[in-house]
C-alpha cells in the first residue's frame, strides 16, 4: 500500500463519512457543515487527480457560495422546524434498500470491467492543463458554446432566484 493509496483511503473515508452524516444527522445546520466537509474531501480528490484548478474552484464555488447559501437558507427557515422530531421519513428503509441495490449493482459492474483496474499513466510532461482548459473553454473548436450557454443559465438563475425570493411579487 503506497502513500497515494493511504491518502486516497483517508480522503474517501472523509467523503463517505461526511456524506453519511449529511443524510442522517438531525440538525440541519450540521448537515450543511458536513456537506462542506464532504465537498472539501472531493476537492482533495481533485488535487490528487492533478486537477488543481477544479480543486480550488470546488472550494470557491461549493464552500464559498453554495454551502453559505444553504446555511443562510437553514437560518432563514429554522423557526418552524427547530430540528425537532425525526428528520427522515418513516419509510426510510425503502430508499436505503434502493441505494444499497444501486450501489451493489454499480460496484458489481465496475469490478467486472477489467479496464477499470488500470492505474493512470504519468502526466505527460509539458502539458499545461490549466492553459489547455482555458483554451478549451473559449476556443471555437471546443466548448465555447456550452460555456456561454452555462453562463446564460447562471444569469437566468440569478435573475430568477432574486425574483422568486424577493417576496415583492405577491
Amino acid at each position, binding site marked *: 500500500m503506497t502513500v497515494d493509496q493511504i491518502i486516497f483511503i483517508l480522503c474517501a473515508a472523509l467523503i463517505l463519512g461526511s456524506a453519511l452524516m449529511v443524510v442522517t444527522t438531525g440538525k440541519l445546520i450540521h448537515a450543511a457543515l458536513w456537506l*462542506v466537509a464532504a465537498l472539501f474531501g472531493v476537492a482533495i480528490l481533485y488535487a490528487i487527480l492533478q486537477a488543481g484548478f477544479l480543486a480550488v474552484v470546488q472550494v470557491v464555488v461549493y464552500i464559498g457560495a453554495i454551502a453559505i447559501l444553504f446555511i443562510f437558507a437553514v437560518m432563514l427557515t429554522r423557526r418552524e422546524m427547530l430540528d425537532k422530531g425525526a428528520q427522515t421519513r418513516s419509510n426510510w428503509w425503502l430508499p436505503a434498500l434502493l441505494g444499497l441495490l444501486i450501489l451493489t449493482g454499480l460496484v458489481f459492474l465496475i469490478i467486472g470491467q477489467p479496464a477499470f483496474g488500470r492505474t493512470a499513466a504519468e502526466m505527460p510532461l509539458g502539458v499545461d492543463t490549466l492553459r489547455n482548459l482555458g483554451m478549451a473553454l473559449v476556443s471555437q473548436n471546443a466548448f465555447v458554446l456550452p460555456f456561454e450557454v452555462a453562463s446564460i443559465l447562471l444569469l437566468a438563475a440569478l435573475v430568477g432566484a432574486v425574483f422568486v425570493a424577493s417576496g415583492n411579487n405577491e
Partner: protein
Amino acid sequence: MIFLNDPINFIAGWMRGLLTGWGLPEGLTTVIIYVIGITVLIVFAMVLDILLVWVERKVVARFQDRIGPNRIGPFGLIQPFADIIKLIIKEDLTPAGADKLLYNLGPVLAIASVIILWAILPLSEKIFGVDLNVAVLYLVAAGALGTLSIIVGGWASNNKYALLGAFRMVANMIAYEIPMVVVLLIPTILADTMSVQGITQAQSGMWFAILSPLGLIIFLISAIAELGRSPFDLNEAESEIVAGFHIEYSGMKFGLFYAGELLHAFTFGGFMAVLFFGGYGGFFGLEKIGFFSWLDNPFVQALVFLAKAMFGYWVIMWIKYSMPRIRIDHMLAFNWKFLTPLALVVLVNTAVLSKVLAGLPAWGYVLGMFLSNIVIGFITVEILRAYGRKQHKVESKLSPQNTQNQEQAV
C-alpha cells in the same frame, strides 16, 4: 554557501539524507519532511503574528498622538506576550444554548483560513511553501473559508448580535469578493499566469502598481472590506451590535479571532506586494548590475518582501485609523454600483490594451497602460462629481432650511 543560496532545499536534502540513513522508507520520509516544513511555516506565521500585535498598537498610538505600549521590555516589545498569557488564563465561557462543536470550530477555522494563505506566499525565489499554478484563485478560496468561520462562529454563539454580525460579514465578503476576483485577473493578464512566482518574476522590470494603479486601489479597497476593517468593520460595529460575531467569545478563542484578523491584514499586505509591487523582487533591473547582485540572495529577498508587506499592512492600518465607519447600505451600494463596474472597466481596459500595446517598446507599453488608467480614473472622478452635485441639489431642495426660506419668500 549552498545554504545561503537555497536554504529550504539544503535543509530538506540534509534531512532526507538523515532520515533515509535511519532506514525509513522513501514515502514516509517525504511525508515527515512535509509535516516539518508545514509546522515551521505555521510557527513562523504565528510568531510574526505576535509581533504584529505590538506593531499595530504602536502604530495606532502614533496615529492618535500617543506613545503606545512602553512599559514591558524595550519599546514595550514584551507586551504582546503578556497579553497572550492574560488571554490564556482568562475564563473560557460557552454561552447556554450554544452549539458546542461549531462554537469551538469557529476560531480555529478563522485562523486556519489565514494560515493556509501562507502556503502560497513567496518569501523569496527559493523560500516558499508551494508554487500553485492557480494561486490567485487559491487566495479567493481561502477567503471563502474565512466567511465560513465567521458564519459558524456567529451562528453557534446563539446570540442575535452575533448572528447579525455574521450576516453582515457574509454579505460584505460575498459582495466584495466580486471586485476582488475581477481585479485579481489584472495581474493574471499582465503576467500571463496565475502562479505567484510567475507574477513576481513578471514584475522584475516594472511593478504592476504602475501598469494598473486603479487595479491596486480597487484591490486595496476590497481587501479592506474582506478583512472587515474600518471603514468596513460593520461586522463588529460596537455602537450598533456590540462586538458582532465574536461577542460571546472570551479568552484565547477571542485571541484567535483577533490574531487571525491581524495576520490576515498583514497577509493581504503581502499579497498586495506580490501582485502589485514586485514581491521579493521588482528592482527595475537593478539586480542585474554586478554590484547589486546581492539583491538576488534569498534572505535579502525575504527581507524585501517582508518590508513591502509591512508597508501594505501600514497602509491598511492608516486607513483603518483615519476613516469613520460607513453605513451597511452605503457599503453594499458602493460595491455594487461603483466598485464592481469600475473593476470590470479596468479589467477590460487592461485586457485590450495588453494586446494592443504588445508590439510597442517597453516604455510605450508602460506609458500607455499608466495613462489609460489615469484617464479612466479622471473620468470616474468627473462622473462622481457630477453625481455628487446632482445629489447635493436634490438634497438642498428637500432640506427644511430651504423650504423655510421659500416660505418666507412667499
